[in-house]
């Protein structure tokens, strides 16, 4: 690994950003416009339909807050895992990534609880356009959580064998992005729409 790395250093013009991290930034650029496009649609419709406020009071704000805290905490654990990996402490990195996965699963459980109660109360995706957007945006976000959990688990296996420790950072960047999306979805769907 190290010989290939030095050979690469001599072989090419000096790289601008570490290759793996740069690839992750490109992924995020693509994701920003996907999520952003969905949010732009939601905002435009929301602006046109003041009556959505009546639907929005039925979202479960308490679970929204809990899930925000859960995701922020998982962001902390993954960035600490990156810190540990950076200092070569594989065991600690692995433990912290395990916490992150647990927190991600907790998020999904809360989400599932929330969905089931909403559906039971009659707020299905076809109830009205607000609920369509609610399920669309949170569902897309939940899919990214699942993808992130799989990615973290994959990297965690490598870390256990002390391989590809730099990937902790890349998967972390992705996980933080999912967190950032939620930071915006939380006020968009739970707090502000009640006005």
């Amino acid at each position, binding site marked *: 690994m190290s010989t290939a790395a030095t050979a690469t250093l001599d072989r090419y013009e000096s790289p601008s950003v570490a290759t793996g991290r740069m690839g992750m930034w490109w992924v995020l650029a693509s994701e920003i416009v996907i999520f952003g496009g969905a949010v732009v649609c939601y905002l435009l419709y929301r602006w046109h339909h003041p009556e959505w406020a009546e639907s929005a009071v039925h979202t479960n704000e308490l679970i929204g807050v809990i899930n925000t805290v859960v995701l922020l905490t998982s*962001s902390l654990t993954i960035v600490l895992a990156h810190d540990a990996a950076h200092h070569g402490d594989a065991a600690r990195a692995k433990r912290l990534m395990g916490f992150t996965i647990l927190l991600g699963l907790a998020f999904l459980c809360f989400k599932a609880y929330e969905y089931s109660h909403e559906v039971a109360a009659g707020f299905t995706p076809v109830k009205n356009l607000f609920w369509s957007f609610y399920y669309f945006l949170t569902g897309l976000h939940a899919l990214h959580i699942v993808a992130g959990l799989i990615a973290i688990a994959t990297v965690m296996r490598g870390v256990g064998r002390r391989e590809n420790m730099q990937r902790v950072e890349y998967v972390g960047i992705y996980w933080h992005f999912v967190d950032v999306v939620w930071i915006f979805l939380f006020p968009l769907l739970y707090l502000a729409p009640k006005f």
Partner: protein
Amino acid sequence: MNRGTYIKIYFVLLAMVGVSVLLGLAGHTRIAVAGIFATALFKASLVLGYYMHLKAEKNWVKWMLGSGVACLVILFVGLVPDIVYVYGRIAGN
């Protein structure tokens, strides 16, 4: 950046969650909505800057992510006349 910073940022983030919830309870005003989104932007910038280390990243990465957001702004502005203030829309739709 070290562990201490990360944990400090974490508590600031939690505090911000509290602030936005309080703003949500405070009253149904434009200022409250603006405050909620301002805290969201602040939270996002903390995560981006410190957890994703964008502060220490090369400038072109910031420009690149920023131009993605710029595209969305263009899209939003271009669509407002048609989707929000609708030309010829029948009332009730």
